[in-house]
Structure formats: structure tokens, C-alpha cells
């Protein structure tokens, strides 16, 4: 059981302290602690077996003593005590430990403490290691670039604490696509409700956030503006820095929610507006290797779905039909060259012509089969170009990002490609493939560390490029 010490515990604390450090009683005035010092104790059957003595500064906590009785070592008691401290304070923590105390050093490392200084011969012939653990960073993400109203809390750039996504798809499906004016109206009506829903999922409060991140580009201008003003207002009321995030950076950084990305890496960006191969050398360091010369992959899915009379959005519609079909229609292999650029308009035209010709001949189109053949041809181009980019850049890591990464056929083909080339692959979890604020908060984290904050006079931009 963990509790804050009481005066009746003082004798046991001193006894345990002296057991490990004969000078304990002289060094620490446990009988008369100043009010900024405190001790949490761990008891088993009312017997004190460990304690954590700390100093609470305005800016940080300093662990002065962390002691567990010899016979109770390896029972995670020290971990319980540290965890209790972390639960009660989200602050920087510092401490100092003897260099020979490897088990303690390893324990602190597990709790994300880093060595920041070595005090040479601090203990006579032994040095002291000064370790530090930064406070946890909570970022509130806001996303409304299209037809999803979403707010999320992400810890340290890679842990999804809570997310709410309100999709408007059921409304827009009636119009065969997203109607920008309706999307803006719904965002305006729903943002405070989404905020309330989010904070019903966590004990955290808006006051606990370290920054407010918001998608400012690209997307539907009216929709972006509503989210941007909402985020600015929250940032203003709670006096938290505002971080503007590019929507595509969000898709890329959704991979950090799997495990933190290691650079350099090759990224295949596939969405309704993007089809690119990008070499990423570090946080926000992008080198575009190739991009589409005409339609984006998501766009061509939507257009082909339309000519096949399949419901909006086209991606899931075609994918579903393709599961039922066979690859029977002959479609051209486009961009079969040594370039890293993409092109999909030729494939789209081939599908349209094929439908037209079959109709003229009086043949009925097998939609499932045509969906299969189209998907195979389209994804094959992505795979071929990615394979080429891996070879050309000698990449060891590959990530996929963007809405189309939700396509299961693409996911499976990319897994094969990664195995074939023996490289590490990261694809965002399904729930992070479609638009969400989790990825926006994740993408804001490296900007937070660099203190790249925005003023309240920033504007939304519908077609700004990331790179």
C-alpha cells in the first residue's frame, strides 16, 4: 500500500534509511522536513518496506531518496513508488545516483530518465550520475479539413490518450460527395459537442494540455477555418501555445502511433489529393522523389467508382467489389519506366473506354471483375514505383501514409514488398488512416519540441503543399 508518510512512520523511515546509508540520520532531517519536501511510503501488512523522499520545486521534482529494504528487492516496490509520483505530478523530475548502482540506473531508464550530467568523484572515488525525466507532453489536436470533426489528446507524440471523430459521411453520401458548405455548417454545430465527448473519456482537463494543434492546410477552406478558429479560441482561453499542422504531415506522423519513426525512411503518400514517394531524412525534412503527373490515387478510385455507378466514397466501394471479382479485364500497365513519378489518368481513360466499348457491343459489364482488374492495375503501379524507390535510395525503412493506406489490398501488397526487400514497414492502424485529430496532435509534437508556435493571425490555406 502506498501512502503519504505520517509522523508515526518517521522512526521506520530513519531505520530503513540508516540500514542502507549509515549517515542517513545526519544527512536528512526527517523529523523536521521543510514543507516543500515529502515522503511517500510503501507498506506491506503495516510494515514499512520502502519510501520515496522528494523535493517539490516550482519547476521540477527532485528525488532525494528512493529506498527499498534489502529483503523486498525485485518486488517492483521502487517502480510502484515512482509510478505514484508520476501520477501525482506532471513535472520534470531530476535525481542523482551512484554510478555503481546499475539496477537503479536501469530502473530509471525504464521510466524514461536520461543522463544529463556526471559529477566526477562525487562519492569519493565514485561518480554521481545526474538523471532527468521530462514532463509528459499532452497535445490537443483539432482536425476539420474535410467531413470529419475530430479532437484528440496525444501524450508525448505517440500515445493516443483519447480521440473523438464525428463523421458526416452519412449526410454527404446523399449528394454523391462531400458538399463543402454543408461540411462547414456541421463543423460549426458540432465542435463543442465533440470537445465535451472527448473530455468525458479522460480524467485530463483542458488545463493539462501543453499545446493546441490544428490542421490549417490543405482541405476545404470553409471547414479548415471553423477548426482553426475553434483551436485559436481554446488556445486563447487556456493560454496554451497554438501549433499549425499540415494535414499530410498528420498522415505521415500517424505512423508514430505504431512506434516512433526512425529516419531516414521512405514514405509512400497515398490519398485523395496526393500520390508521392518521399524520402524523409528527419522530422519535417522531406525530399520528394516522385509524384503523380495527373490524378491522385484516391481521386482515380472515386472517378472509376462513379463510372461504375458505385456509391461514394469510391475507395471502399471498389475494394469491396474487388473482393468478389476476378481479374478478367485487360488494362494497360501505365508508367512502366525508370521514373519515380506516377500517372493514373491513362488507367482511368482505359476503364471508361472499356465500359463504353462493351456497352456498344451490347455486353454487360461485370462490375466486380472490372473493380478487381482496375484495383490490381492501380495498386501494381504503387508497388512497382515503391520497389524502384527502395532500390534507388537503398532504404531500410518504409512507411505508408494517407487515406488510401486503409486499402487492404495495398496493405497486403506492401507487406509482401517489405518482406521481399527485407525492410521494416509501418502502416498506420486502420482507425488512423481516415481523417482524425490524433495524427494532427502526433505531428505537432516535434514542432512543440522546436517551439514552432503560431500567432492568432494565421489563416487557413486550401491548397498549401507540405513539401
Amino acid at each position, binding site marked *: 500500500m502506498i501512502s503519504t508518510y505520517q509522523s508515526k512512520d518517521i522512526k521506520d523511515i530513519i531505520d530503513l534509511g540508516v540500514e542502507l546509508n549509515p549517515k542517513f540520520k545526519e544527512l536528512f532531517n526527517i523529523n523536521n522536513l521543510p514543507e516543500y519536501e515529502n515522503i511517500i511510503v510503501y507498506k506491506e501488512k503495516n510494515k514499512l518496506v520502502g519510501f520515496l523522499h522528494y523535493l517539490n520545486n516550482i519547476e521540477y521534482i527532485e528525488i532525494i531518496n528512493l529506498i527499498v529494504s534489502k529483503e523486498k528487492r525485485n518486488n517492483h516496490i521502487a517502480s510502484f513508488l515512482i509510478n505514484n509520483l508520476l501520477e501525482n505530478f506532471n513535472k520534470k523530475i531530476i535525481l542523482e545516483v551512484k554510478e555503481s548502482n546499475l539496477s537503479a540506473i536501469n530502473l530509471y531508464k525504464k521510466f524514461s530518465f536520461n543522463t544529463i550530467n556526471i559529477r566526477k568523484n562525487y562519492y569519493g572515488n565514485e561518480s554521481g550520475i545526474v538523471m532527468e525525466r521530462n514532463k509528459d507532453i499532452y497535445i490537443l489536436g483539432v482536425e476539420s479539413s474535410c467531413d470529419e470533426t475530430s479532437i484528440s489528446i496525444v501524450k508525448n507524440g505517440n500515445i493516443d490518450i483519447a480521440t473523438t471523430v464525428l463523421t458526416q459521411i452519412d449526410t454527404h453520401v446523399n*449528394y454523391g460527395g462531400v*458538399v463543402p*458548405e*454543408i461540411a*462547414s*455548417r456541421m*463543423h*460549426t*454545430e458540432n*465542435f*463543442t*459537442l465533440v*470537445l*465535451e465527448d472527448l473530455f468525458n473519456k479522460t480524467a485530463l482537463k*483542458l488545463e493539462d494540455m501543453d499545446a493546441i494543434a490544428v490542421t490549417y492546410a490543405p482541405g476545404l*477552406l*470553409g471547414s479548415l*477555418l*471553423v477548426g*482553426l*478558429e*475553434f483551436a*485559436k*479560441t*481554446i488556445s*486563447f*482561453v*487556456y493560454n496554451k501555445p497554438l501549433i499549425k499542422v499540415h494535414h499530410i504531415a498528420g498522415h505521415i506522423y500517424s505512423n508514430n502511433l505504431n512506434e516512433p519513426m526512425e529516419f531516414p525512411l521512405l514514405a509512400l503518400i497515398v490519398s485523395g489529393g496526393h500520390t508521392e514517394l518521399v524520402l524523409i531524412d528527419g522530422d519535417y525534412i522531406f525530399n520528394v522523389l516522385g509524384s503523380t503527373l495527373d490524378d491522385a490515387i484516391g481521386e482515380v478510385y472515386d472517378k472509376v467508382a462513379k463510372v461504375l455507378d458505385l456509391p461514394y466514397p469510391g475507395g471502399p466501394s471498389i475494394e469491396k467489389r474487388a473482393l468478389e471479382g476476378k481479374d478478367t479485364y485487360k488494362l494497360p500497365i501505365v508508367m512502366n519506366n525508370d521514373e519515380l513519378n506516377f500517372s493514373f489518368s491513362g488507367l482511368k481513360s482505359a476503364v471508361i473506354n472499356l465500359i463504353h466499348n462493351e456497352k456498344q457491343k451490347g455486353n454487360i459489364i461485370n462490375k466486380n471483375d472490372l473493380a478487381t482488374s482496375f484495383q490490381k492495375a492501380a495498386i501494381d503501379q504503387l508497388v512497382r514505383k515503391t520497389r524502384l524507390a527502395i532500390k534507388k535510395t537503398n532504404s531500410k525503412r518504409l512507411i505508408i501514409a494517407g487515406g488510401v493506406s486503409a486499402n487492404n489490398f495495398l496493405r497486403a501488397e506492401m507487406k509482401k514488398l517489405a518482406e521481399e526487400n527485407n525492410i521494416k514497414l509501418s502502416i498506420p492502424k486502420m482507425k488512423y488512416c481516415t481523417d482524425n485529430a490524433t495524427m494532427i496532435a502526433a505531428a505537432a509534437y516535434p514542432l512543440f519540441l522546436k517551439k514552432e508556435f503560431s*500567432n*492568432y*493571425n*494565421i*489563416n*487557413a490555406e486550401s491548397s498549401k503543399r507540405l513539401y
Partner: protein
Amino acid sequence: MNTLFISTYNYLITIGLLKNNKKIAIKEIKSDKSHSIFLIPSIESILKENNLDIHNINEIIVINGPGSFTGVRLGVIVAKTLAYTLKINIKTITSIDALAISNNILKRKIVSIKDNKGVYFAIYKNNKNISQIKYLSKEEFDNNYINEINIDNGVLDIEKIALFLKDFDTLNPHNVKPIYVKEIEVLK
């Protein structure tokens, strides 16, 4: 009681501060099509200039349209988010009502707001709206109402507006939404 007044329905951003329904400051910013650049900075600066903090505000009054769709949305999302997060009162008034009240209309008059294609308007008498707010093309409006006395000066009197709203109930911020009036193509 400190009231923050927000109007964004046209090319102007109007931010006002009232103390017990008496005007203490007003700011008008011309912001052609980029309300987002000026809205929060204007609120921030008017508060600062009057030695107030946003946490000293007890009530929000926002014009919730009709007018520029995007303009109105920005005013409304800021107003409702302020009210929700600060847990303070929020009241809305239409742009047409706000103009009518500012002008103290006793005899029958038309109050109107033009946009680039048409006119939002309503008919007032004894300071009461005796019609609904409608939107007509410029031609239709002129054909039907050319002989009526038309108030279209756009001047807001925030004290009169605050006084008019004094006994109105505060709204649930979640339920505050813009009034558009003009239909959009896809919804016709």
C-alpha cells in the same frame, strides 16, 4: 457584468466591450475575406487595451447571421467556444434585428443587408420584426420594395442591442448556430 460583443456577418469585424450594458470600447476592423486573421487578435487587443482578461468576461453577445456564411460561422464558433469553455452566458441576435434595434424604428420600415447578389431583409414597426427575414435577388427586392423606407446603413449600436437582450435567457452554447436564410444550390 462584462459583456463581449462579436459581429462578423459582413466585411467588418465589430468587437465591443460593455460593462453593465454600458459601452466601454468598440473596435471595427475591415477584413476583406480574411476574418480569421483579425478575429481573435481583435478580441485579444480590445481586452488588453481595457485592462481586462478573457476570464473577466461574463457574457457573450454574437450576431449569428444572416450575412457572409463564412464570416458568420467564424463569429459563432468563437462565441460558442468562449461561452462553453469559460462557462459564461451567451446570447444571439440576428444581423437584421441588431440593425433594426440600433435604429429605433417606430413607423414601418425595411431593414436590409446587401451581399453581392441580393438582399437580406425584414419589415419592422414599433421596434418589432413584423415579417420573417427573407433573401431576394437585387432585382426582385427593388421590384417589390423600391417605395419603402429602407435602412441599410449597417451601423450597430451595441448598447441598444445589449439592453434589448437584457431579459433574454442565456443559450446552451452547443445549440448556438448560424442563421443562413439564403438557400444553397445543393439543398434546393
